């Protein structure tokens, strides 16, 4: 402590502010490097908040534990003949669903956060408009990670034995985290658009349920009526689920993995600029 104050005494000593010099130093936008520092600072803020409010981890913890066990024992026999035969189908599906739930929380929390006074200061500071949005999303990577690992562990406990081995599992979880992070941009965009946190929650539910249930997450697409099968096949969640299945069960990097990644890139390219634009406009 003492070293800090002696160190800073000289550079911080009172000096006159010279407006002309400050004007000359101003820049018209944040550089890439500055933006990165800002994003990391915002991520650190989000992490501190997570540590202080552990209750926001409930969705991350409960869903994998509860849904994995529940779905396995309820649907296992009906869909795949037995619980153990259903697990290779189910676990990647639950993983995708959990990732989407975390995404939803991202949008809701951003909306709550934006209603607070501190966002006034963020807006008044010379920082890149993307920093307050991207920062929390980096911190959320931890939540996706925890949620994915928990889902897998629950599966292992009730008898799932992934054929892809350790590498396949790591790959599957990495893909889940990447997909979750990319899809979160959609919900972040919603967060900047909606009027209240409740409405973000409502709209997100309306998006999340069709996306997860009208996919191959829980049942094979072939069992569905033709029109539904057509939707399920283009649903990006289906691609992620198939890709994660390939990685978990066979340890194979298939074309599905490629498609899932392309889907992620497309979502980010479309929704990240939309979110930033809507955020900068809402002033």
């Amino acid at each position, binding site marked *: *402590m003492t070293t*800090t*104050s002696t*160190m*800073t005494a000289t550079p*911080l000593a*009172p*000096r*006159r*502010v*010279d*407006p*002309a010099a*400050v*004007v000359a*130093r*101003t*820049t*018209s*936008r*944040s550089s890439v490097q*500055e933006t990165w*520092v*800002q994003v990391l*600072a*915002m991520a*650190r*803020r989000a992490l*501190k*908040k997570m540590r*202080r*409010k552990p209750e926001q981890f409930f969705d991350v913890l409960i869903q994998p534990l509860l849904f994995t066990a529940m779905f396995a024992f309820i649907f296992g026999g009906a869909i795949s003949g037995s619980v153990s035969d259903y697990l290779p189908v189910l676990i990647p599906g639950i993983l995708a669903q959990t990732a989407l739930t975390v995404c939803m929380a991202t949008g809701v929390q951003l909306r709550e956060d934006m209603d*607070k*006074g*501190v*966002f*006034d*200061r*963020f*807006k*008044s*500071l*010379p*920082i890149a408009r993307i*920093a307050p949005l991207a920062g929390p999303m980096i911190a959320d990577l931890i939540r996706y990670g925890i949620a994915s690992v928990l889902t897998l562990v629950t599966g292992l406990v009730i008898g799932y034995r992934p054929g892809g081995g350790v590498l396949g599992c790591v790959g599957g979880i990495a893909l889940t985290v990447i997909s979750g992070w990319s899809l979160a941009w959609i919900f972040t965009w919603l967060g900047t658009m909606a009027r209240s946190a409740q409405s973000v929650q409502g709209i997100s539910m309306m998006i999340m349920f069709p996306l997860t249930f009208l996919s191959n997450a829980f049942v094979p697409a072939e069992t569905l009526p033709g029109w539904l099968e057509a939707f399920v096949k283009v649903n990006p969640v289906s691609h992620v689920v198939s890709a994660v299945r390939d990685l978990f069960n066979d340890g194979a990097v298939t074309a599905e993995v490629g498609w899932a990644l392309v889907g992620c890139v497309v979502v980010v390219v479309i929704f990240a600029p939309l979110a930033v634009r809507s955020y900068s406009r809402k*002033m």
Partner: protein
Amino acid sequence: MADLSAVRAESLVKNFGDFRAVDGIDLHVRQGEIFGVLGPNGAGKTTMLRMLATLLPIDGGHAEIFGVDVRREPHRIRQLVGVTGQYASVDEDLTARENLWLFARLQGLTGTRAKAIAVELLERFGLQEAADRPLSQFSGGMRRRLDLASSLITRPPLIFLDEPTTGLDPRTRGQMWDTIRELVTDGSTILLTTQYLDEADQLADRVAVIDRGRKVAEDTPDALKTQVGDSTLQLSLADGSDIALAADVVRRLLGEEPVLTPESGRMNIPLPDPNRAADVLIGLREAGLGISSVSVAKPTLDEVFLALTGHGAVDEPQMEAAR
């Protein structure tokens, strides 16, 4: 460049739907001065400040800060202006130290510098003991101080203070005033809004009076007060029937016409010079007239408004919602 204005705004306009919150305000703030914007709630003060701080889009007119166009170069403006809002814009979930660190990092200070400046500002604003406590335990005054400290991290040449002392107790208000004066000694320019004539009087070199989105007057606080009128000496006589005699004493001593309320034995006397209050009191005692109560009232914001606009300072709270 020496006479570059801190703020030069011409016919600023802001509409919220059909409601015109700011209706063609011109503002000219010189470097190194404290410029006060005085007006009741809903007059458009905050809206104007938020437009100048790039927090609200400007609907009409033109604004420059140190010669930089507010509309075209918002990122530059944000490097020139420190904003302290009516509601403390600090992070409630972080400690004071973490707040300062965050804002410093966001503005490009290195980790070590950010820590050092947090220590320096906490000390300067008397917050070092509360530095690591959650903000939920902070009083209104402490929050305000932290908010102001957060605006000073990069020592911006222009500082916006939106009603910096509203809701503070008199002692804290006095401390805040001292801090604001220090900022000017350091070379900063200050644009502050206030509802209190007293505050504008204490701090501001020049004052603009805003009413319903328009500027109704601009002058030094002294000139405004003379325009408005004087202090009043308010007396209650011990014996109400003496009131005519007392009025004679006042006319003889001050040459002013007192306003009488004979039923309650009260009189209000215009007081061009507050020092003359003593003359009146002595005169009354010499005439053998007893007094039951006495007070000197300064002109209030309400009276300034009445004098300048013909109507009182009526709060228009529905407009303040348009943040």
